[in-house]
């Protein structure tokens, strides 16, 4: 009876210590990636290749999602505002919610699912097939050669993808508001211009997407590098990237919003 209870408490302690040591490894790993960045910049070809697979190949899902999110936002905003005769403000609602929240957050969620999981699977498989150890045997630093370009490509791609998402979303909102619902096109742009601040809204949205890009890329490359090198462990690591990445985005979004927009 007492032994059973002690076992439970030991399991709890074991779990806590394991989680803490994982957090510590993730930080040590991040420092190693930073150290590897300078060496990686000597070979920009590596970065270009990763920008292609992380950024360019994520573009289509971002454009399609942005278009439809913008169109839905315009429809819903119109429905809510038309009762007050304020349907000209549809553009303000669409643009502000895209720039401040939906652009960075949805882009980051899609990015975690599309690019983050791929990064984890790629690095994890390299570990499982001992390619990373092979590099070390040849005196090639795998963090510098494999991880750093992928991490940097993620950090660079996210703000660009978020900007494209918001721009396409605004165009989708324009399509619905002006072409479908018959609002005035001049009022659409001028209302948005009178309410949207360059640094307050667009700038803070870009800072958000940069932070999300950093965190998602960090989680993705760490989960891949730290995974248990079996097919089962690789599957778990990929799942963890998407789950932890998405949760981190949503929690960080609340913290950043509270810091930036609460006055």
């Amino acid at each position: 009876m007492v032994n059973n209870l002690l076992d439970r408490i030991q399991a709890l302690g074991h779990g806590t210590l394991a989680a803490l040591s994982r957090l510590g490894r993730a930080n040590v790993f991040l420092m190693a990636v930073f150290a590897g960045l300078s060496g990686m910049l000597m070979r920009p070809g590596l970065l270009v290749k990763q920008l292609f697979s992380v950024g360019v190949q994520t573009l289509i899902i971002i454009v399609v999602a942005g278009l439809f999110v913008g169109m839905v936002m315009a429809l819903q905003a119109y429905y809510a505002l038309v009762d007050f005769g304020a349907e000209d403000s549809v553009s303000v609602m669409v643009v502000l919610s895209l720039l401040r929240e939906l652009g960075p957050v949805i882009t980051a969620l899609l990015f975690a699912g599309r690019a983050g999981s791929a990064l984890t699977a790629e690095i994890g498989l390299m570990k499982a097939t001992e390619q990373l150890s092979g590099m070390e045997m040849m005196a090639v630093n795998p963090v510098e050669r494999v991880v750093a370009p992928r991490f940097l490509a993620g950090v660079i791609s996210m703000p660009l993808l978020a900007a494209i998402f918001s721009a396409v979303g605004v165009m989708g909102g324009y399509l619905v508001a002006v072409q479908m619902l018959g609002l005035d096109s001049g009022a659409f742009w001028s209302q948005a211009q009178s309410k949207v601040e360059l640094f307050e809204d667009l700038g803070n949205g870009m800072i958000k997407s940069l932070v999300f890009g950093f965190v998602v890329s960090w989680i993705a490359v760490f989960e891949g590098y730290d995974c248990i090198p079996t097919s089962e462990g690789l599957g778990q690591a990929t799942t963890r990237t998407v789950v932890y990445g998405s949760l981190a985005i949503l929690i960080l979004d609340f913290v950043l919003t509270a810091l930036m927009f609460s006055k």
Partner: protein
Amino acid sequence: MNTRTLELLVGLFVAAGLAALFMLAMSVSNLASFGGDEGYIIKARFDNIGGLKVRSPVSASGVRIGRVTDISYDSEGFEALVSMSIDPQYNTFPIDSSASILTSGLLGEQYIGLEPGAEEEYLVAGSMIDITQSALVLEQIIGQFLYSKADE
């Protein structure tokens, strides 16, 4: 895929991202109305500023000519002291011009309307506008209405 196509696509991606950023900055944000901060500052006292905020527009005949730059409370005169920055190209407002706090639309935001006077001298940086009209506060209007009804 060879290096050229790869680099071409990445270049297009980065260019599209920057173009999107540029489009957002130019067409939906207030970048076009920047640069009005170098205007000259004039001040006015109001009994009540209602919902006026820093960066609210200042307009004359409906044309935006400046912005509110600062709002403070003068604890000696028990009045609100509003500073506004006026675009330097509009530098011929007579010194007896009046300022009133108006509302755009029924429930819209509040702004300052400048009404030009008739004097020969012009308002310059640091001038004080003497003739002002406060914001209409709904509760006060209703109160006055009820009061006048009671008198009948």
